[in-house]
């Protein structure tokens, strides 16, 4: 059954890709083809994922190819099923959105080619989560990286897009390089590329080799996931891509890194040493905190969202890291809880982040700018986009009663469990992580007050936002779908936890009996240490709010509501530029964390009469922050590599004779090596 569904899925995406390319001259048909087949494929993915989750059936398929070591090994288990469900849901929404969104590009770019890569990209995501042979995995991983690279540089007429694309290309291949090294090391120790055989043989791998593989895998998958400090490609690439591609990349693709980290450290390697978990936890804490802080300083809507992806990856890693630590400490119940929290947040982040990116896309397609300072007042002209964006904003800030809260709550609980550890070092570590998460939650709320408030509220700050209209239904419906999903997952948090218990139970590390407790819709942690009941909370909220509304209506039934202008202190009229701006909103937080941002402020004053300095003609303030990672990490790295390449250039002078000499010398060397070693 799984294999049949997977074949259908495969053919949908392939046909979509080819048809889209075939009709690339007829843009409308091409667009329709690519997205309709993508929708069909995604739907199949949802069905397949749900099917695996319901039947809990593990299927392995191996197609032996003529090549040695390289076999098309597929494996459908609960974890893969869960991720397929996520990919399917986001793919569905993004493809429907894309159908409307791509219209603005009809006259400018090649739609057929886009559709081709788009379908291949979605397909590669499904292939990555099912791959179970190392080489084959690298192959599909590379397809994913390349297709997403082509999607990022789709708007290739902008210079910045190309630059962002190149950066992404380099970073992702640096990551792949580490992955290749890690896999080769594993092959060296076990003589197989098959993940499940590696799992069996994992006990025989020497410790130092396992540690090296851990570091390489963390670097490789971490680059894809966008952990700090390997994150620099993420804000640039995500903001350059078309919005529904950003939604897919941010919602799903960076999760592939997370998926493999879960797979490797919780599923494939047994008996992980303690320090692995500690490293992951520290990286998680730093990524979440720094991610949200950078997001605060950002005033490009899509980059802001991209930085929030880094934050949320950090939160997921907090779950993964504590799970690894608990497992090393032989506390499988807590380990399962933490892993569950991480996986739950993966789903939630995929849903609300894609929702927010689609919302951003809807806004950008109307206003033509990504600059927050140019927006304002869009809630009146784009009511649906605003409503759905608000749902996403509340969810990502981890506020009840939506889904973000449920998973952050679980993450908090697993960190709290760590704080109770008797070892002082670990306790301090978990305290640090808990503090980082608490601060992250608050800062994320601040950041989304800014993002939503500046974009949708107050009055329009530019003519573009004044003339904006609501996007077409094709853009609004997928957002609505994801928003409903946010509410539904929040409401049914208990049920999702129940499913995730099964997913987690399938990890070899956890025996099926050791599961987090849940009683109906109530999630109960650690024998009643903490419990949460989302449905009752939501219903109480609704009931009390409506009661308050009705009572107030009744008490003040005779009073009238008068509409007037905003109170302006008696001034002759408030102008939009007097409203608070995104930069101003986050300025106090930037100044509080000035060690990180290193803000610079330049004032330029011009007087009407330079001798009498009373009346200013223009007053310009430049408030800028420094990207510490670029300045202190990547620029020195770049300088070193440029210096090295200059050294290499000396032996690579372009002289053909010299090259032949090199080849000759190498050959001689190889002969000797083969002879004597």
């Amino acid at each position, binding site marked *: 059954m799984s294999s049949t569904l997977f074949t259908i899925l495969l053919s949908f995406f392939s046909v979509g890709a080819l048809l889209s390319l075939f009709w690339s001259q007829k843009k409308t048909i091409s667009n329709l083809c690519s997205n309709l087949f993508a929708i069909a494929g995604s739907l199949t993915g949802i069905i397949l994922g749900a099917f695996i989750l319901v039947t809990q059936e593990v299927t392995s398929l191996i197609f032996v190819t003529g090549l040695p070591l390289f076999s098309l090994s597929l494996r459908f288990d609960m974890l893969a099923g869960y991720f397929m469900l996520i990919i399917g849901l986001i793919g569905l929404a993004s493809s429907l959105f894309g159908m409307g969104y791509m219209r603005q590009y009809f006259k400018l770019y090649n739609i057929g080619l886009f559709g081709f890569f788009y379908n291949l990209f979605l397909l590669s995501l499904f292939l990555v989560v099912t791959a179970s042979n190392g080489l084959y995995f690298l192959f599909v991983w590379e397809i994913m990286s390349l297709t997403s690279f082509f999607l990022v540089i789709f708007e290739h007429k902008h210079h910045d897009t190309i630059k962002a694309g190149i950066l992404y290309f380099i970073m992702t291949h640096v990551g792949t390089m580490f992955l290749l090294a890690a896999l080769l090391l594993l092959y060296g120790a076990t003589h197989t590329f098959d993940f499940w055989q590696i799992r069996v043989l994992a006990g025989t791998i020497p410790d130092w080799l396992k540690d090296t593989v851990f570091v390489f895998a963390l670097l490789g998958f971490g680059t894809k996931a966008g952990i700090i400090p390997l994150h620099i490609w993420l804000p640039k690439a995500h903001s350059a891509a078309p919005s529904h591609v950003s939604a897919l990349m941010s919602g799903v693709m960076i999760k592939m890194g997370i998926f493999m980290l879960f797979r490797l450290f919780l599923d494939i390697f047994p008996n992980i040493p303690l320090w692995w978990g500690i490293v992951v936890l520290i990286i998680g804490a730093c990524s979440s905190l720094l991610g949200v802080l950078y997001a605060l300083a950002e005033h490009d809507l899509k980059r802001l969202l991209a930085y929030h992806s880094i934050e949320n990856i950090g939160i997921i890693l907090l779950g993964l890291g504590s799970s690894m630590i608990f497992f090393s400490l032989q506390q499988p119940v807590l380990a399962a809880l933490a892993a569950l929290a991480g996986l739950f947040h993966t789903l939630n982040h995929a849903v609300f982040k894609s929702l927010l990116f689609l919302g951003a896309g809807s806004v950008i397609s109307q206003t033509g700018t990504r600059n927050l300072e140019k927006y304002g007042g869009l809630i009146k002209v784009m009511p649906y986009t605003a409503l759905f964006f608000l749902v996403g904003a509340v969810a990502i800030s981890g*506020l009840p009663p939506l889904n973000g809260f449920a998973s952050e709550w679980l993450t908090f609980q697993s960190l*709290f469990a760590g*704080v109770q550890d008797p070892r002082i070092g670990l306790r301090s570590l978990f305290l640090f992580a808990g503090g980082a998460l608490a601060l992250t939650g608050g800062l994320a709320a601040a950041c989304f007050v800014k993002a*939503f408030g500046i974009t949708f509220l*107050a009055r329009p700050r530019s003519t573009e936002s004044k003339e904006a209209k609501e996007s077409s239904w094709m853009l609004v419906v997928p957002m609505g779908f994801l928003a409903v999903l946010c509410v539904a997952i929040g409401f049914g948090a208990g049920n999702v936890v129940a499913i995730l218990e099964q997913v987690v139970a399938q990890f070899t590390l956890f025996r099926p009996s050791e599961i987090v407790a849940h009683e109906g819709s109530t999630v109960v942690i650690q024998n009643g240490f903490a419990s949460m009941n989302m449905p009752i909370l939501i219903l109480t909220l609704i009931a009390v709010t409506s009661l308050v509304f009705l009572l*107030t209506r009744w*008490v003040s039934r005779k009073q009238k509501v008068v*509409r007037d202008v905003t109170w302006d202190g008696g001034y002759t009229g408030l102008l939009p530029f*007097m409203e608070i701006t995104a930069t101003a*909103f986050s300025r106090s937080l930037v100044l509080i964390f000035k060690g990180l941002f290193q803000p610079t402020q330049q004032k330029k004053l011009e007087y009407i009469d330079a001798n009498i300095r009373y009346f200013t003609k223009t007053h310009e303030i430049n408030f800028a922050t420094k990207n510490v990672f670029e300045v202190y990490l990547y620029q020195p790295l770049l300088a070193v590599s440029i210096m090295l390449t200059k050294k290499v250039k000396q032996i690579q002078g372009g002289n053909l004779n010299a090259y032949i000499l090199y080849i000759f010398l190498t050959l001689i060397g190889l002969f000797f090596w083969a002879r004597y070693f």
Partner: protein
Amino acid sequence: MLLIILKLILLPLLAPLGVGIIRKVKAMMQSRPGASIIQPYFDLWKLFHKNETISRDASWIFLVTPYILFAISCIVLIAVPVFGKAEIHVPFGDFLTVIFLLATGTFFLALAGIDVGSPFGGFGSSREMTLAALAEAILIFTLLPVAFLTDTTNIAMMAVLATNLSMISYFALLFAFLGYLIALFVETGRIPFDNAATHLELTMIHEAMILEYSGKRLALIEWANANKLFFFALLGANIFFPSGLTMYSDTMSLLLALVMSLFKVGVLLVVVALIESVIAKYRFFRLPDILLTGFVFGIIAIIATNAL
């Protein structure tokens, strides 16, 4: 269930009294009689019977925020214990849930501040969110030690079980309480963080966001603030000084426990007012220092808890 509904009605009705007490004590500290302690009720009654003037730029966010804020402030009051063991079965009594519910209210209020496009509202929101972001962590970290000592995160349960704690654990709780007090001051907008009585827009935090509200919506927001103050006082009084909570559920002991709770709240509010009277408002960028102090108190308390 009956008790929950009783609390839902009773506590919001009592809440404005808390504001009245603080104002009265502060007035007495300034050598003047001041308004009577039931003044807040008059204010609310008047506001409910006034017309509303709402900006044309306001969207539905501005219109629904007071209702959400008020409803949340009532719901969090349910979660706090007043009587004792009889009310531990609140399905959302977990302290994280309660803290994040309050954050939801702040989130919407900050949006409403931006909504009308007045410059005052905008920077009010900015400041409020800045402080709220930092304060949330303190609140979590100062309640956590109590949760560890009592092995539950359900607020009512925490309070009930805290009655049996040994004297030595009060050493840890002392630090937690100090940190909590700082969280109380920042969350309820007290001096040195915010001055509720200020008329100067440039120094406002909370007031700046609600400058645009009038009539019944203003009344709801003011009332929600009273609820919030009452919530923090009640939580502090019953978690850190739980004696007085009853284990029984007959009417007499419930009544006694209620009176005890209210008495403790009164004392705590007087202490708050006394502290407020003798310190000056701090410069905005000095506030993170105080907040950090609160955070450190919380961490000391947690470390001390585990050392016990």
